[in-house]
């Protein structure tokens, strides 16, 4: 049950990260809109990690989590938890950056952070 829930959450996270990656590579012209604020988060240097788009890293992270969920052995559970905890930690950092540094919130990024938080909880429960 926990494993299925984790798979479902990973699927949602995968879709969000996929969307953000497409937006990143599509290079849509961002603007600062009177009604919606600026595309500050996507344009900031935090949107990339050592030249790799964070959205792509998230996408790969969700793929890896889904792959680890395909198995139910002890190693696979530790692997899932390690990935989910790392994702949760980095998502927490990015959320801090949005609030404290950029003063801008990316709703899709928050959605992915919530998925990672749920995955961290579910994968910890599977280790118990």
């Amino acid at each position, binding site marked *: 049950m926990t494993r299925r829930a984790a798979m479902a959450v990973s699927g949602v996270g995968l879709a969000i990260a996929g969307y953000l990656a497409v937006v990143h590579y599509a290079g849509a*012209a*961002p*603007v*600062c*809109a*009177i*009604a919606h*604020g*600026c*595309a*500050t988060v996507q*344009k*900031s*240097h*935090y949107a*990339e*990690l*050592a030249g790799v788009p964070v959205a792509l890293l998230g996408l790969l992270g969700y793929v890896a989590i889904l792959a680890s969920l395909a198995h139910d052995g*002890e190693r696979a*559970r*530790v*692997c899932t*938890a*390690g*990935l*989910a*905890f*790392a994702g*949760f*930690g*980095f998502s927490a*950092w*990015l959320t801090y*950056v949005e609030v404290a*540094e*950029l*003063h*801008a919130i990316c709703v899709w990024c928050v959605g992915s952070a919530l998925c990672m938080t749920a995955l961290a909880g579910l*994968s*910890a429960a599977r*280790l*118990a």
Partner: protein
Amino acid sequence: MSNPLRRLLAAVTAAAVVTAAAIAVSASGGTKHTAATAPVSTTFRGIPEHAGVLGNPNAPITLTEYVDLQCPICAEASEQTLPWLVQNDVRTGKVKLQIRTLHFIGPDSERAARVASGAKAQGRLWPFVESFYAAQGQENSGYVTDAFLRSVAKAAGVNADKALAAGGQADLDQADSDATRLGVTATPTFTVARGDGQPKVIGSGVLSRAALEKALR
């Protein structure tokens, strides 16, 4: 130590190492300009500016840019678009440039717009805007202080005391009313007017060189 706890510890330890490394890389990226490093403006050197209009007053085409000085996309557009536009179309007398400074992002935008109006009164609006973008900080972080504005003014060759004393309300009102009339809801937005004709919106965001050339043809 029990097996579940050992597994949990292993996962947490591995994740902590990866996360710490990722955060270290993420936090080290990028550079921020400060007021003390506002570079001296050079793009518009030698080009006449009258009442905020840059270039030959009789140029047949008027390109107007709607900006918010806090807008990072406006800074990017300025950096990518203006140098060749100025070189090819403004210096040659084909196009004159206007700017309308909006202030919707926050209080820092309004302070910046008012001082920009003071720079405009001194015939140094465009250098001021260029220097401001070069030193631009994070939106609404309160970075647009008097010290910051003085540094930008100095880099742009603007008398800071006079510029900071400017109210600029008329320019703010004109920018707002023009934006409302033309339906401008985002920055940067560009409009083009031919002769005494009505301005038309040609696009928003960082426009490509091809798109601008087509609009100015």
